[in-house]
């Protein structure tokens, strides 16, 4: 791996805007406040009927008003994934102070991750096709069945015409999209990239996941997901969208933009794993972590914190904890580890929302707690109970997917660079 360490300002990529629609609120202010309080969004699912399956918990987006963000003309053409994406993209651009204009629109793009897209719309098409025949299929639904619909709708609503790509690779879709967006800006194909991920709760896929026995069977209570806890019994499905506005440091400096953090490293990897199973050994995580550190020119002891991928799954959490234990075995100072999936659930393309959480952590100098964690499966520096105030120099965003795919990113305090 011969990553080049070009440290010119045009090759340094910074985060200058955050936009999100999450179970802990829409917009970074409410999200940040509730995250710092250790709030939990997990509750009994209200938006769908779960009576046919044995799981009933979810982290739903409940107070989202698309009309606040999206024009009436486009609103009715969009499904829920597209509404959340267009709203989050608008918030990210606004937060970054970027106005789309005839001069810059070809240099603004989007790289969006979505694991399941608008599965509910595809199911609706299938339903009509099977019950009523092909002539009854509503053509209005068709454009939303493609996975790249949310990114397409966002570009139409906001008017940007640059690079537009959707990544769909299960639970690392958003992390991959962010890594890809970073390389697009470095290549010079865009000045601003919106990057993140979206996924929603839908009946078909909630029932399918439940039938795969992945979900926590807990009936109620805020502690359905217990990342890294010995008592964890499965994950809780979440939903939402999180989008970063990325640009080069030179671009941000020229326009006097506020900088949340710098993305100093990225690494991708695979390990042989069945497409529906979480990896069982630590090699894939360790290999990808090392590649990521190499790309950032950092050593393990430089890492202050890890925003983990753990979601309360029996296999995933154990493998992830063991991997960090092995990776930092020789370090005197071990990093703090936290997972926000204890409060936000597992939304698969959660990397967008988690990236927003990590950017806020670096900027505001505190790490959110792992809600639901009281008996750690390994003795590590887990952030539990309440937020941890700390100067975060280099933090890692962990992306691990069933099927054995890994994407790691390093978010650094840009002033300390």
């Amino acid at each position, binding site marked *: 791996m011969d*990553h080049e360490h070009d440290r010119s300002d045009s090759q340094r990529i910074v985060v200058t805007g955050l936009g999100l629609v999450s179970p802990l609120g829409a917009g970074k202010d409410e999200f940040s406040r509730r995250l710092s309080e250790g709030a939990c969004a997990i509750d009994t699912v209200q938006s769908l009927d779960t009576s046919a399956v044995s799981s009933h918990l979810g982290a739903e987006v409940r107070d989202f008003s698309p009309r606040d963000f999206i024009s009436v003309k486009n609103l009715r053409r969009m499904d829920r994934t597209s509404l959340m994406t267009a709203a989050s993209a608008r918030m990210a651009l606004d937060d970054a102070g970027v106005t789309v204009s005839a001069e810059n629109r070809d240099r603004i793009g989007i790289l969006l991750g979505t694991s399941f897209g608008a599965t509910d719309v595809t199911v609706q098409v299938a339903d009509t096709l099977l019950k009523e025949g*092909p002539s009854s299929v509503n053509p209005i639904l*068709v454009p939303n069945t493609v996975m790249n*619909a949310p990114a397409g709708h966002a570009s139409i609503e906001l008017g940007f015409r640059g*690079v537009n790509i959707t990544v769909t690779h299960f639970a690392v879709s958003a992390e991959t999209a962010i890594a890809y967006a970073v390389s697009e800006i470095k290549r010079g194909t865009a000045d601003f990239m919106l990057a993140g991920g979206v996924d929603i709760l839908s009946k078909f896929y909630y029932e399918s996941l439940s039938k795969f026995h992945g979900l926590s069977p807990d009936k109620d209570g805020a502690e359905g997901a217990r990342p890294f806890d010995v008592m964890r019994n499965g994950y809780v499905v979440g939903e939402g969208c999180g989008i970063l506005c990325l640009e080069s440091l030179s671009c941000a400096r020229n326009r006097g933009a506020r900088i949340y953090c710098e993305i100093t490293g990225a690494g991708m990897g695979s390990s042989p794993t069945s497409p529906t199973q979480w990896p069982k050994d630590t090699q894939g995580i360790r290999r990808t972590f090392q590649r990521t550190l190499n790309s950032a020119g950092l050593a393990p002891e430089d890492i202050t914190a890890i925003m983990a991928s753990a979601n309360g799954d029996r296999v995933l959490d154990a493998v992830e904890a063991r991997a960090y234990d092995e990776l930092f075995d020789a370090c005197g100072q071990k990093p703090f580890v936290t997972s926000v999936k204890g409060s936000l659930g597992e939304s698969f393309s959660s990397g967008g929302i988690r990236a927003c959480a990590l950017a806020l952590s670096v900027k505001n100098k505190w790490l959110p707690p792992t809600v639901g964690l009281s008996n750690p499966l390994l003795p590590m520096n887990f952030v539990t109970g309440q937020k941890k105030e700390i100067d975060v120099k280099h933090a890692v965003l962990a992306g691990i997917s069933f*099927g054995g795919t890994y994407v790691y990113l390093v978010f650094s305090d840009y002033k300390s660079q």
Partner: protein
Amino acid sequence: MKNKKRIVITGLGTINAIGKDVAQFAVSLREGVCGINDIDLFDTTEFRTHKGGQIRNFNARASIPDEFSLKRMSRADQLVFAATIEALTDAGLYPLPERFKEDMGVIIGGGSGGLFEAENFYADLLVKGLDRSRFSRLSTVYCASSADRIASNLGLLGPKTTLMTACSSGANALGYARDLIESGQAGIVLAGAVEPMCRITYAAFNALKSLDEDVCRPFDRTRSGLSLGEAAAILVLESLESALTRGATIYGEILGYGVSCDSFHMTAPDEKASGAVRSMQAALKDSGLSTQDIDYINAHGTATPANDVTETRAIKEVFGPRAYAIPVSSTKSMHAHPLDAAGALEAIVALLALSQGFIPPTIHFKERDPECDLDYVTEGARSSDLRHVLSNSFAFGGNNTTVIFGKYEGQGAAHGS
């Protein structure tokens, strides 16, 4: 900036309506073979149209001897796995030597994935109900499972992802694969795409009234829609240095790659063709070539009334008067439109054209359209010593991708047959 690495293609693999492998595909392209006829993969009685470019007589067992894997693969997984083995064998990399696995990646342009199996599952579900349905049949429903199967079966440890930009997915997979090699994040990358035919997709295009009842007629005045197809296409990408070290046969080089977004409408192209113009210009700029250097354009050429006139307009805007001197053909007239796999399949067309010295024709052409007045190669294939081929892929969501391929001359160059 350091000089960019030169990225070459050293292996090809495909299964499509006019080729069970690359050798047969090349012959079909020269001879103008039509692969569009009555579909029998599913019952089309209730549909408005009945034709498509279906893959016939696919023998999955020939490529996937392992019964365990075979059973767990969707039709899409099987097709793309077979194409992968062909491409690796062609590149002299099968069985895959251990030393290449560490940084070998796989980037797939995802299509409908296991939707064909999912619709059968869903039909059962409607009859049997939740509790009596075998949800394990859904394990390959999402298109990302193809890349997981490939990586897992071959033991690949490098970057892996699935890109989904509808009909430009395959072209984007090549572009991203090239970037990963250029930036040193991967050594050899398997890049390509797969699109299986299925009822839901067929119903969706029927509902949009985008399908021609007869065979599609790209650029013809009487054209009335596309012919849906299916295909798997995989290319082996690596640096020139790596190819020369291995003593590999080189089909050609990726010289340029450009992406843009219409930001106009989800399914209709922008009539001003601005998006298509910008993707071609971005690819030309990336390649460092001028409009004078392009010898052949493999058009998106779907044969929808809107696409062909818009694409023609875009080519004229980019190339000026020279547009009339450049042969432009749509091979979709032969292999039909395999949606997400089109960009990767047509990359193979471009590389065969470059390495074997011919221009494939647009077949089924009858009447000239005053608005489509370029040289569409309607009289059959031509022999021509091509140096640079430009390939367009445009998609739902307003996504446009252009890739430029160059002839490779020197040690290891593939020669015509």
